[in-house]
């Protein structure tokens, strides 16, 4: 159910307007910060991950790692370079409408994709021997650890907290425009940074896959 609130402009890049501009009626749809309907799907994916690791067969591990990794990479690139700039240029009501529909889904999708990619990837690397330091492309593998590590610090330290915090702020009866603006900026800039890091991931993974 949507609710109309009287609030000064909420959005990115309009801090002055947000603080001083005329009030505008902004409709905010009701939403769940963590969409409960998606939890069973996450549960099924995690069960598949456990099964894949337990059986230690090549195809399930490859499938989970590639699907998880492709989802992670594509979402980061799309958010960072396509949707982020669009979001920043939308009218305020459209920004809020998109944010309250998109970001709750990201709360479930991204941690799940990352967990599946890393857990299945490590098991896959153990299975085929690419995590061994004797592997002839070991330097590239370590480079992938570093890239993933940098992305993890950015995502866990900045992006994920900003995602939760902006949704929490938008759930309030009177969200503060300057808080939403600051958190949305942080979300979009960090999504762009991880998008850039994903280009490095693509370079490394295609190099490893080429042998």
């Amino acid at each position, binding site marked *: 159910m949507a609710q109309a609130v009287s609030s000064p402009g909420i959005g990115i890049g309009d801090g002055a307007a947000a603080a001083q501009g005329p009030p505008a009626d902004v409709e905010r749809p009701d939403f769940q910060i*963590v969409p409960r309907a998606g939890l069973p799907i996450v549960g099924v994916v*995690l069960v598949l*991950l*456990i099964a894949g*690791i*337990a059986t*230690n067969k090549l195809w399930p591990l490859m499938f989970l790692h590639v699907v998880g990794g492709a989802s992670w990479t594509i979402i980061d690139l799309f958010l960072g370079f396509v949707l982020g700039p669009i979001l920043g240029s939308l009218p305020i009501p459209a920004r809020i409408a998109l944010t309250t529909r998109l970001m709750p889904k990201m709360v479930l999708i991204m*941690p799940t994709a990352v*967990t599946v990619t*890393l*857990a299945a990837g*490590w*098991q896959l690397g*153990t299975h085929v021997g690419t*995590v*061994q*330091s*004797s592997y002839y492309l*070991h330097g590239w593998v*370590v480079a992938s*650890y*570093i890239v993933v*590590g*940098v992305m*993890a*610090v950015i995502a*866990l*330290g*900045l992006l*994920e*907290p*900003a995602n*939760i*915090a902006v949704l*929490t*702020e938008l759930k309030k009866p009177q969200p*503060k425009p*300057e*808080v939403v603006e*600051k*958190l949305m900026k942080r979300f979009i800039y960090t999504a762009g940074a991880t998008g850039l890091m994903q280009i490095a991931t693509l370079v490394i993974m295609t190099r490893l896959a080429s042998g």
Partner: protein
Amino acid sequence: MSEPDRVDAVRLPPVTQLGMVSLALIVAAGIYLSAHIPEQVSGLVHVSGFASHSVSLAPAIVLLGASALMLAVNLLALARVDGFAWARFFEIARWALLAYAIIAGMIEYVFLRNHTSGGPLVVLSFALVLFAVHVPVLIGFTVARYQES
């Protein structure tokens, strides 16, 4: 203490900045250990069944110790803040803790599935515990800092 942010309700210590440095230390410890598989770490255990030269666990332990220290400093600094919205912090952090405990559990499962044991398992498990506590602290802090207490 850091400067007050124009959108913060109260003056706050640099929890996010310290938290990110602390997370980076955990990641560095994980990369160090992962990069040395299957070498024997500290001569304590065969990680994957290949004979090789011994690699010390000490760098990873130092990195994780520094990370734990920064986490403690972060929480102590936050505890000294008057008017911080602790109820909101715990409301958010406990659910985040549940989620990240599941994620850490999945990664621990992979280590156990691959027969990691001894010193490396202890160090990696400690790293996962730190990770599973750190992220909820950062999420809870980021939400609670904008809450009127």
